């Protein structure tokens, strides 16, 4: 969450700025660790410095270090990766990229393996929602939010240009050059531009176990990936209250989709390809009208194309070539009003229009107008924060042919608080309640034969109770932070596929109910071992007990839901010395079932994935040069996150970067 940010934090801890009376939204401090501790809803953060030590190159690698998450990872660099938080399913996790939600109206799940960490300043995961109420309505509208904050141009010593160039080379045929630059145009304007290309062959050997007495070493094929990401952003600030930025983003990817390791037939099902093209432009502006009134506006246009190609559909006589295009327009306007010093109120309204087209026939060509509005209030003192809001959602569904799905209207309340009982002790208690839902996706509603137009939104109720403690010391251990949150979630009207029409075809129903009890524990520490050596360490632990409560007469009733380990966690440690920086990280998980029916034969083994990094910095005339070397999955374990999708064994990565 904050490991090395703590260094900066502990240095400035003594002169914490109280911005209470400076900003229209009452935000007491902005320090990462303070944010973590003060937040009324759990927030976990990884900053750029920590991210470099996590053996992570994509967002999907890094989020495994958050507590309470399950990353569904089909293995390898190109494999699809989605993020489920506290067992509610990936559709309930919103991804915010620089303040604007990334959406997928087709299936609602965002592949987080596509986001590079190269240009990321901060990665945050909020359960419930962010404490910053001055934001678009859409960011209130999910059960949890993963926020990807990109780097902002910053110029040291009156430089007008800064940049970083990186080359990564590694096992699995990985090669990835990237460059990020920023230019100061004048006092008010700056520009950033970056590009990253990644190519990997991705094939690896793994051991396939056919049973107790039979195994073979096989090669994972069709795991190649080639990505290109180009991004540019323009920033404006007048150093008073006005801020604006605009971003243009293009991503393209071609990858193999390695199938499951089908016993005795591993080479089949290994020809499918996925092509992605995503383009968006988004803009943001905010300004103050008066000391107590402020507005912000967001706009985005997103165009995403997906092409799925199976050249050997049903063993080779046919080709399946499906293309789906989605377009979305999005606009948001928010006003923040601060009637008294401790209270602020935000009113935000968002409107978007999304449309899905395809080369499939017949295809309904669905589109949706989505209107979301929120009224949020926040009351803050040094020792107490209370937030409450109500979100209203209305959809208008239409189709080019056939019958459109039902329109939906929903009211969604949220309330949270954080209290510090003793002023001298940075111990805070927090709680939140959130009632939210996810809309049926276009696949849920319209997918030929399985889709159901009458589907209702899938509801979740979340209740969280937590405690956080932070302390700074003058001695060797400089800083510690610990938080523990217990939660109860329930998911109802869960959208599940259920066999229909004689079991050959499945349809979507609002059938599922899941009850989840769990606990997340996060701990951080920073120690100054000597004048030159600092140690930072972090650990997370997740306890999750997610049970099927759908039907009391079913054999599955009260069984644990698939892919949900009771125990899981992560750890990391980094040692900064004048000679070399050393980093170690581990992600582990206990046993879990791949079936909703819990019997030992459906169990998946526990695993731990250990990684180490060595890094060294030099200051040269060209700039600061960093060389790093990583060993990933040291134990060379082909563990599986999704059954029959083995992960790569031990692999190596080196990178050289120059900051100029």
């Amino acid at each position, binding site marked *: 969450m904050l490991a090395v940010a703590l260094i900066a934090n502990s240095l400035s801890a003594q002169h914490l700025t109280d911005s209470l009376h400076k900003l229209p939204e009452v935000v007491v401090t902005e320090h990462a660790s303070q944010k973590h501790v003060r937040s009324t809803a759990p927030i976990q953060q990884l900053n750029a410095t920590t991210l470099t030590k996590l053996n992570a190159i994509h967002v999907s690698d890094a989020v495994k270090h958050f507590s309470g998450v399950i990353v569904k990872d089909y293995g390898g660099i190109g494999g699809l990766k989605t993020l489920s938080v506290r067992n509610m399913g990936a559709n309930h996790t919103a991804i915010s990229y620089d303040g604007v939600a990334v959406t997928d109206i087709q299936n609602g799940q965002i592949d987080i393996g596509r986001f590079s960490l190269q240009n990321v300043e901060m990665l945050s995961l909020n359960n419930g929602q962010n404490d910053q109420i001055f934001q678009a309505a859409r960011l209130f509208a999910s059960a949890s939010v993963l926020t990807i904050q990109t780097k902002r141009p910053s110029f040291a010593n009156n430089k007008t240009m800064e940049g970083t160039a990186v080359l990564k080379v590694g096992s699995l045929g990985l090669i990835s050059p990237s460059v990020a630059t920023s230019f100061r145009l004048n006092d008010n304007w700056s520009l950033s531009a970056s590009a990253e290309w990644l190519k990997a062959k991705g094939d690896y050997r793994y051991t396939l176990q*056919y049973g*107790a*007495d039979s195994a073979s070493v096989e090669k994972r094929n069709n795991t190649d990936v080639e990505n290109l990401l180009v991004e540019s952003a323009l920033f404006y600030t007048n150093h008073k209250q006005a801020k604006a930025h605009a971003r243009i983003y293009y991503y393209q990817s071609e990858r193999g989709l390695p199938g499951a390791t*089908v016993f005795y037939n591993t080479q089949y099902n290994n020809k499918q390809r996925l092509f992605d093209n995503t383009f968006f432009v988004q803009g943001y502006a905010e300004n103050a009208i008066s000391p107590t009134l402020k507005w912000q506006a967001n706009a985005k246009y997103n165009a995403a194309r997906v092409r799925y190609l199976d050249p050997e559909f049903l063993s080779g006589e046919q080709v399946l070539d499906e293309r789906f295009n989605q377009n979305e327009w999005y606009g948001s306007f928010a006003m923040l009003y601060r009637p008294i010093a401790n209270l602020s109120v935000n009113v935000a309204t968002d409107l978007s229009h999304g449309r899905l087209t395809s080369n499939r026939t017949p295809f309904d060509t669905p589109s949706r107008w989505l209107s979301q509005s929120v009224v949020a209030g926040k009351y803050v003192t040094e020792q107490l924060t209370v937030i409450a809001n109500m979100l209203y959602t209305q959809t208008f569904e239409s189709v080019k042919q056939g019958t459109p799905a039902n329109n939906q209207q929903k009211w969604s309340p949220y309330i949270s608080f954080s209290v510090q009982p003793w002023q001298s002790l940075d111990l805070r208690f927090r709680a939140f309640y959130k009632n939210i839902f996810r809309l049926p996706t276009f696949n849920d509603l319209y997918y*030929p034969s399985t889709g159901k137009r009458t589907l209702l939104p899938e509801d979740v109720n979340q209740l969280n109770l937590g405690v956080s403690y932070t302390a700074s010391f003058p001695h060797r251990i400089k800083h510690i932070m610990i938080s523990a949150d217990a939660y109860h979630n329930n998911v109802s009207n869960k959208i599940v596929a259920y066999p229909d*029409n*004689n079991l*050959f075809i499945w349809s979507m129903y609002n059938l599922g109910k899941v009850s989840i009890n769990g606990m997340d524990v996060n701990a951080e520490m920073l120690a100054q071992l000597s004048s030159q050596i600092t140690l930072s360490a972090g650990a997370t632990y997740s306890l999750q007990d997610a049970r099927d409560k759908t039907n009391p007469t079913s*054999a599955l009733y009260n069984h644990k839901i698939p892919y949900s380990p009771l125990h899981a966690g992560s750890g990391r440690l980094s040692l900064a010395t004048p000679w070399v920086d050393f980093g170690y990280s581990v992600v582990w998980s206990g046993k879990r079932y791949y079936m909703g029916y819990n019997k030992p034969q459906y169990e998946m083994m526990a695993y731990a994935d250990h990684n180490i990094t060595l890094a060294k910095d030099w200051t040269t005339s060209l700039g600061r040069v960093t060389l790093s070397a990583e060993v990933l999955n040291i134990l060379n374990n082909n563990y599986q996150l999704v059954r029959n999708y083995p992960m790569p064994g031990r692999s190596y990565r080196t990178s050289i970067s120059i900051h100029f």
Partner: protein
Amino acid sequence: MKKNLFACLLLLATTLFVACEKESSTPIEEITPTTGLFILNEGLWHQSNSTLAFYNLETKKDEKDLFSLVNGRTLGDTANDMIKVDNRLFIVVNESSTLEVVDIETGKSIRQIKLTDENGKPRMPRQIVQDGKYVYITAFDHTVTRLNISDFSSQSIKVGLNAEGIEVVNGKLYVACSGDWNAGYDNKLYVVDIASFSVERTIEVGLNPSMIAKDKDGDVYVLCMGNFYDVTGSFYRIDTKTNTATKIDGIVGSEVEIKDHTAYIIQGAYPTPGKVVVFDCKSDKVLRDLVTDGTEVDSPYALSIDQFNGNVYVTTSTYLEPGDLYCFSAEGKLQYKVEEVGIGPNTIVTK
């Protein structure tokens, strides 16, 4: 005459020797030579967790994963069909694209045959029948493979798209070719002459023909699945003497098995509970529901008829949990139930 001889031969092969003699004269419910049941469970797609279970009727005990226990390896991915030939089980495993030949006494795999085409591509076998000398295997690569059961030599011929159900009648193979949603569903039975091993003719039936069974007169009954969209399923009878198809109205089903002149059909789709009905092949009419004692069978999935005593085995599946096996007398009274035989129990063979 020839037809009767053939029926007798088939019985001979699929059951034990005594069957043929007893078949016509002995009343059912006598001492049954059926000593156990092999139940093939397909498992979940791409989980490679198909199982072969064995239920011992004498000890009332079952071994849920006989194949893995004996062979130290699992059966593979999506085992689709199984038949008994002499003292061996022939099991086709769809996604693994294998044929396992298993000793019926020990459960040991005598041979695993990879079913691939001349380019090494998996055929993805679906269903299997036999005529005492050969087994005939339909496959997703639009072929029927004929495999000699003594030397395992084989040859294949192309039929229609996605060959599914298959029956042997009077030296001919009747093959249901379903097509699929991508290429378009087909509506034909392919008739293959066994002697020349070539397609002789096609017979038009309903859209998406999948399941097939034959009665004692050699009439072939076909369940067609429709397109799951605007064309519903249908049911056809083919007179194999004239090769003419007749549609039988009012039946939409997912599985059909026939003993003599009585067909058992699984009907119904969620949210309507599925059920097994008894159908008379002489009058082409549904006679009654199979179950007459009020036993509730949730989500019937597959059925099989004991050729000795006429008992009807019905399995259940939701794919979410292991299914159960129910044994009903021909009169529809529950004889016994075996719980949790495996995921997706699709074939039952008597020992």
